[in-house]
């Protein structure tokens, strides 16, 4: 499992960019009774590391809305190992959990972080674990610790080691410049994937998390591209007249659902990488767009205005049978699904305001999750616990997140420019 962290990071060799639209976190609300946890400073031989691992872990856990991390200044002691833990120090300040750990440099030059999770009331060590990595991987080690702690306490797989892709638009030298960016799930370590003077839209992750598909107007018209993260190698997949949009990788990675209007109006197509062939999936004079896969790879959900207003439909790829899923309101579009296919999230218009809403596909319950206006582009974390979306604040595009139960929220404001179209990577 440790190797996994290393492997992922070794593959990523993107160029960091200097604080362009760099994202920061602003937690706007959490649950009423968050679990209290203290992350004792994790250092190397008592000296601070280039990245403050404990602070990153604390911020990760707080961002979930389920935890409250103790400020370091309030800690009565700073144990670096289990042998230095005095339970009383944590009990009297009401901590439920404590993380202690330290980093050493191994003979091979790698860093090795040993960390333990402790339940204070029961005076129980829940686990002790070692994570290894290079100096450049301190943030990965921190997110790894967060994932492990989060899973042990909540039973939900942590998504702190995942990434975000998004598009930024900034005005430079009098004109808009568009960038496709990838950052860690916490907005840190932003990297440039593509820069263009023409619009970039609709980023979508490959199921292995190693590639992105997107729409770029660089040829003077919209076209779909795929691009590797590790070496930026890219390929133009479509060049039809009209729309070339809304790419969505199939769960097995062998094909892509996309939208072309070459036959007169927007229809869903299936593009197979092996044969480079396009198969038309829908046949209707209305707009059919924004396909997204069910996890079994046999059905797509998509937006269509075939009923007179944009609504979400489900298409069985084999039988081509189409079923309408949304009936609540006159605008439901751009569907995304939780990993278990149970929760549909979408852009929903209510009294002229565009919100993100969820619909339980079993019970049919619809719930508006966001409080802002002009909300769009929802994307669900691979663990299904949070979703991110784009909204506007002070006339600027920003990313925001809300837990799927609407209990906690945070914003990722950027320093500069518009940020839009977040896409949460797979695990």
């Amino acid at each position: 499992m440790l190797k996994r962290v290393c492997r992922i990071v070794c593959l990523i060799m993107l160029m960091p960019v200097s604080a362009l639209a760099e994202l920061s976190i602003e937690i706007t609300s959490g649950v009423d009774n968050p679990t209290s946890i203290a992350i004792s400073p994790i250092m190397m031989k008592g000296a601070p590391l280039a990245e403050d691992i404990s602070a990153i872990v604390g911020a990760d856990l707080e961002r979930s809305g389920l935890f409250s991390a103790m400020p370091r200044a309030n800690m009565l002691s700073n144990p670096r190992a289990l042998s230095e833990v005095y339970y009383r120090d944590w009990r009297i300040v009401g901590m439920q959990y404590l993380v202690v750990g330290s980093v050493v440099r191994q003979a091979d030059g790698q860093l090795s972080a040993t960390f333990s999770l402790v339940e204070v009331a029961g005076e129980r060590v829940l686990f002790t674990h070692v994570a290894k990595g290079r100096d450049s991987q301190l943030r990965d080690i921190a997110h790894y610790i967060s994932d492990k702690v989060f899973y042990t306490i909540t039973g939900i797989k942590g998504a702190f080691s995942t990434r975000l892709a998004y598009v930024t638009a900034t005005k430079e030298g009098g004109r808009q410049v568009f960038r496709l960016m990838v950052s860690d799930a916490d907005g840190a370590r932003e990297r440039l994937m593509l820069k263009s003077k023409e619009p970039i839209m609709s980023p979508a992750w490959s199921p292995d998390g190693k590639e992105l598909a997107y729409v770029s107007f660089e040829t003077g018209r919209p076209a779909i591209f795929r691009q590797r993260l590790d070496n930026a190698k890219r390929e133009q997949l479509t060049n039809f007249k009209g729309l070339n949009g809304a790419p969505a990788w199939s769960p097995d990675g062998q094909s892509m659902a996309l939208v072309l209007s070459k036959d007169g109006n927007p229809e869903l197509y299936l593009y197979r990488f092996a044969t480079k062939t396009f198969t038309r999936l829908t046949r209707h004079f209305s707009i059919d767009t924004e396909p997204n896969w069910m996890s079994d790879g046999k059905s797509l959900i998509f937006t269509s205005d075939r009923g007179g207003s944009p609504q979400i439909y489900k298409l069985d790829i084999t039988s081509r049978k189409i079923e309408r899923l949304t009936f609540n309101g006159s605008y439901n579009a751009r569907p995304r699904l939780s990993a278990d296919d149970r929760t549909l999230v979408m852009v929903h218009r209510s009294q002229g305001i565009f919100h993100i809403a969820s619909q339980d596909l079993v019970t049919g319950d619809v719930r508006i999750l966001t409080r802002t206006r002009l909300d769009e582009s929802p994307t669900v974390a691979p663990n299904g616990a949070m979703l991110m979306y784009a909204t506007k604040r002070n006339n600027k595009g920003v990313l925001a997140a809300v837990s799927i139960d609407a209990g906690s929220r945070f914003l990722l404001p950027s320093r500069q420019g518009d940020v839009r179209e977040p896409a949460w990577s797979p695990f």
Partner: protein
Amino acid sequence: MKLETLKPLLACAILSSFLVGCSSTPSSSSNGAGVGSSTIPADNGVSTGSIDGDGISGSDLDVDGGIETVFYFDFDKSTLKPESLAALRIHAQRLIANPANVRLEGHADERGTREYNMALGERRGSAVQEFLVLQGVDPSLLEVISYGEERPASLDSTESSWSLNRRVEIK
């Protein structure tokens, strides 16, 4: 001419666009759009763009020999406004007299989802295309390109700004 009377003709035009809209020629992509991917280390985020006015594509009322080249639409609609028709007829006459390739760039306001707005922008561009073809313009001269909500003429989130963004530009 009333739009109602245009409907059967529009249907014909849709059919004709089926016949011409199937080109899938390989890319002749020049990199004139200024694309840099992440292997290019030169990008340190510093702006090096030239100064060319306001930068955003199109002002709200472009003129081409005195004729309007920007045509506006109502919210969620892709039907031509009556006030657009006179100028569009003049464009048609010019294109018949002096055939030239023309881009019909369709745009939407920021409300609603981006890919859906791409489709809406295309519908608007197609409405202009169909009108011009009905006037006798060679369909092969006209290409509809939708920018959805990606190239707003006005950046504010207000109704007056949105009304400037729901447009087709003839280029």
